[in-house]
C-alpha cells in the first residue's frame, strides 16, 4: 500500500469504495486499489439504516466483482479489468469488519476529461481513436453479455501507450446476475443518459434496450469531445435557449422540441468538426446522428431500422466506423 488517494475527480466507483494508490513490492508498478468501504455504514447511527447501507454496499461490491470476474481472462483490450482482487486482514479492526475487500486496477495516466483539457485545441486524432477504443470496449462487454450503462468521460481512462479503456462496471447489467440498480429507469449518470429515460417510470425493458444505452452514451462522448458537453446536456441547453414548453411527462409531445434542439447541436458539431477536419464531417455527423438521435426509433443503422430491427444495431458497426475515421485522422487525411 502506498497511500490513500484523495477523492480525485478522475477516480470513479464511488458507490462502495475508497480509492488507494498501491505499489507492487515485486515490480514497483503503481496500481489503483478500490476497497469496499464499511465506514459509510459505521457512521450511520440508526441500526436499520445501517443494515440497509451494509446490504447495499456488499451487494454493489459483489455485483461489480461478479461482472469483473466474467470479464477476467477474456482478452478484453478496452475494458479496465483488475490486476488482482481479494481480501486482506486489517490488524486494527475487529471481526466482522477486519477484512478489506478490494480490486487493484492498473493506474491510468489520465481520464478522458483530463485529456480534453481545452476545446480550443482538440487533438482530433486522439479524440477519434479514443472513441474507437470506447466503442471497442462496449462491444467487448456486449459480447460477454454485459451492458455498462454508465459510459461517460470520467469512466473512460487513458493509459499511456495503450489508448483508452472503459472503466467502472458499478452500474453494469448482466441478465444472469441481477443487481439492485436494475430496477432504476436510469441506471447511470442522468447527464449522459438517453433523454427518453428521463420520462420512464420503469427500467429498460430488456438487455437490448440496456445495450442501446451504451451506444447512446458512446455518441454522447463524441459530442463531449468536440463541444465540451454531453449530447443530453447540449440538447437540453438548446431546448432552454428557445424556451420550448416541455411537458416533462409526455415524451412524444416533447420529442419535436428535442429533435429541433438536436438539429441545432448537430449544426454546431458540424461547424466545429469542419474547422478541424472538413473531410471527416460527413462520417462523424452520421455516427453522431445514428447514436444520439432523441427519437429512439431513429437511432442505429438505417438499414436495420427499415427491416424493423430498431435499436438492434450492434456496437461493431461503430467500432468499424470510428476506426475508419480515426485512421484517416491519424494519417492526416483531414
Amino acid at each position, binding site marked *: 500500500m502506498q497511500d490513500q488517494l484523495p*477523492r*480525485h*475527480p478522475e477516480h470513479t466507483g*464511488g458507490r462502495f469504495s475508497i480509492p488507494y494508490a498501491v505499489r507492487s513490492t515485486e515490480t514497483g508498478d503503481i496500481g489503483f486499489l478500490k476497497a469496499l468501504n464499511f465506514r459509510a455504514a459505521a457512521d450511520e447511527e440508526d441500526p436499520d439504516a445501517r443494515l440497509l447501507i451494509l446490504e447495499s454496499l456488499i451487494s454493489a461490491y459483489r455485483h461489480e466483482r461478479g461482472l469483473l470476474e466474467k470479464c477476467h481472462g477474456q482478452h478484453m483490450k478496452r475494458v479496465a479489468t483488475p490486476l488482482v482482487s481479494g481480501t486482506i486482514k486489517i490488524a486494527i479492526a475487529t471481526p466482522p469488519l477486519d477484512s478489506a475487500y478490494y480490486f487493484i486496477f492498473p493506474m491510468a495516466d489520465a481520464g478522458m*476529461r*483530463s485529456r*480534453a*483539457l*481545452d*476545446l*480550443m485545441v482538440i487533438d482530433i486524432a486522439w479524440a477519434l481513436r479514443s472513441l474507437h477504443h470506447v466503442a471497442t470496449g462496449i462491444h467487448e462487454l456486449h459480447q460477454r453479455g454485459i451492458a455498462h450503462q454508465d459510459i461517460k468521460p470520467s469512466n473512460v481512462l487513458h493509459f499511456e501507450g495503450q489508448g483508452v479503456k472503459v472503466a467502472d462496471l458499478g452500474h453494469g447489467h448482466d441478465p444472469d446476475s441481477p443487481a439492485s440498480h436494475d430496477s432504476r429507469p436510469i441506471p447511470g*449518470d*442522468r*447527464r449522459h443518459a438517453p433523454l427518453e429515460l*428521463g420520462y420512464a417510470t420503469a427500467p429498460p425493458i430488456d438487455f437490448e434496450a440496456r445495450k442501446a444505452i451504451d451506444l447512446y452514451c458512446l455518441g454522447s462522448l463524441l459530442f463531449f469531445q468536440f*463541444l*465540451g*458537453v454531453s449530447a*443530453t*446536456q*447540449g440538447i*437540453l*441547453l*438548446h*431546448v*432552454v*435557449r*428557445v*424556451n*420550448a*414548453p*416541455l411537458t*416533462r411527462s409526455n415524451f*412524444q*409531445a416533447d*420529442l*419535436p*422540441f428535442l*429533435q*429541433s434542439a*438536436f*438539429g441545432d*447541436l*448537430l*449544426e*454546431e458539431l*458540424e*461547424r*466545429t468538426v469542419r474547422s478541424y477536419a472538413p473531410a471527416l464531417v460527413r462520417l462523424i*455527423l*452520421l455516427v453522431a*446522428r445514428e447514436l444520439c438521435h432523441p*427519437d429512439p426509433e*431513429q437511432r442505429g443503422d438505417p438499414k436495420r431500422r427499415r427491416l424493423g430491427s430498431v435499436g438492434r444495431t450492434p456496437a461493431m458497426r461503430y467500432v468499424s466506423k470510428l476506426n475508419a475515421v480515426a485512421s484517416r485522422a491519424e494519417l492526416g487525411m483531414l
Partner: protein
Amino acid sequence: MNKYEEQSNRQIIPRWLSWRAVCQQVPPDASSQSPLAGLVDDVHFARTRARWENERTQVNAADLALSALLSGRLGDTEVGDAIEYLRSLDPDPESTIGLLAAGLTVAGFSPPPSAILDQSTDPRALIARARRVLDSHERDPLLYLDLAYAHSLLMQNVQAERNLKIALSLAPEHPLILRSAARFLLHIAEDNDPDQSLRILRRSGAVRHDPGVLAAEIAISEAFSRRSKNRKLGRSLAFSKNFHPFFLSELAGTIGTLEARHGSRRYARQALEASAVCPTENSLAQLEWISPRVGIEFEVPGDCATEPFEARTRFLFRNQEYAQALSAAVAWAEYQPLSSRPALTASHLASVWLDKYETAIRVLRTALMYSPDSFALRNNLAFALASSGQVDEATAELDKTERLDLDPSDEAVRLATRGLLAFRTHNHEEGRRLYEEAENGFRSLRDRDRNALAKAFHAREELLEGTPESSRIGLDALEVARATGIGRIKAIEFVEKAIGEGGTPQAEE
C-alpha cells in the same frame, strides 16, 4: 378611404408565427420544472466543483457552469469564476460554450436569441438553414414548420402547405404544429372555408386534452359560425388546475367570448377573468376587444404577455392616443405580416387620424405582398397615394381592383376613391358625381359611418380645389360627422378650419 371596421366577432384564432416566436411567449414560471432540473444532484455538483478547483480548464469550467445551471447553484462563487473563465475565452456565440458564457448569470440563464432563428430572420436564410440541417436530420417536424413559415413569407403557399403537411405527418398530435397548421390553412383557404383547418384539429387526439388545440377548434368554429361539439369540454378544461394559467388563457378567453355572445354574463366574466390571470398576447387582445362590450375592465399582470402589439393598438386607439396607436399598429403589422388586419388598422390610423400617408403606404405595400387580392388594402393604398399627391400610382393601384368581385359596400368605397382621384386631376364634376354616387350607396346600405367618412373627404377635396360648392358640402360633412364618431379626424379638422377661415388651406402631410 375605408373606415376602420372593428371586428364584430373577434375570436382567439392561433397566430401564424415562427414556432420559436411562439415559444418565446411562454413565461418563465409556466413550466413547473425546468427541463434541466434533476439532472445533477449534490454529489455530482460537488465532484464537478472539485474538478474545476483542481484543474482550471475549459472543459471543467463548462461542466461546472452547466451543472450549476442544472442544480440551481448559479450563486456559488466558484461557478462565477467558471463563467468568467468561459467568457475570457471569447467562444463562438453560437456554440454551446458560447451560449453558456453569454447567457449565464447568478440569476439564471437568459441566452441571447440566435442571430439566425428569430422572428425577423430573412426567410431565404431560414430556408437555406433548414435545408442544410435536414440533410443530416431529415425527420425533424419543426424544421418543416420553419420551411412552411419561411415559404409563406415569400408567398410560396404551395411549398408552404407541402412542408406543413410533412410536419403534420411527422408529429400529427403536436399542439404547436396542429395550431400552426390550422391557422395557415385558414389563411390560404378559398372563400374563407374553415373546413380543412377544423378537420385537422378535430381529427387529432390532442383536441380532447390540450387546452391550446381545444381553444383553436372552438374559436375557429365560432368565427365561422360552425358548431363545435367540444364546447362542453372546453368549459370544464378552461378552469383546470392541471395547467399553468398561461396555457389556459386562450381557452378561457374563447369560452368567455362564447358565453358573452350567448348572454351568460356571469360565466363570461368568470372565464374572461381566468383568461386574464396570465394571458397570451392573443388573449390579451381579446380581453381588450371584449372589455367595452361586456362592460368589464380586467386586471392583467403588467409583465405577462410579450409583444402585445394588437392589445396595445386597441387600447391606445380606444383612448384616442392615435400617434402611439399607430406605432403599436406598425409593430403589430411587422409581427403578423401575413394578416391584413394590422395593416388596415395602421393605414387607417395613419391616413385618417394623422395624415401620415408615407407610413400608410409603407405598411400597405408590405401587406399587399402577402394579400395581393385584398380590396381593402389596395383601396387604402390608392387613397394614401392620391392624398400624398401620387395620383398616377394611385390610379394604377385602384385599377388593379377592377378584376375583383366586390360587394355593394366595397363598390361604394371604390367609387369614393375614384372620386378622390378625379378631384386630384381637377375633374371636379366627375369627382363630385362619383362621391355622391358613393354616398348614395352607403345611405342605401344604411352605413352611416362610411357615408360620413365619404362626405368628409369629399368636402376636403372640394375645399382644396376651391369649388363654389365647397362651403355647402363642407357644412353638410360637418353636420354628418358630428352625428357619428369621426368628429376629430384630420379631414374634418381641415374642413372646420377652412370654413371657419373662409379660405382653402393646404392639406398637411
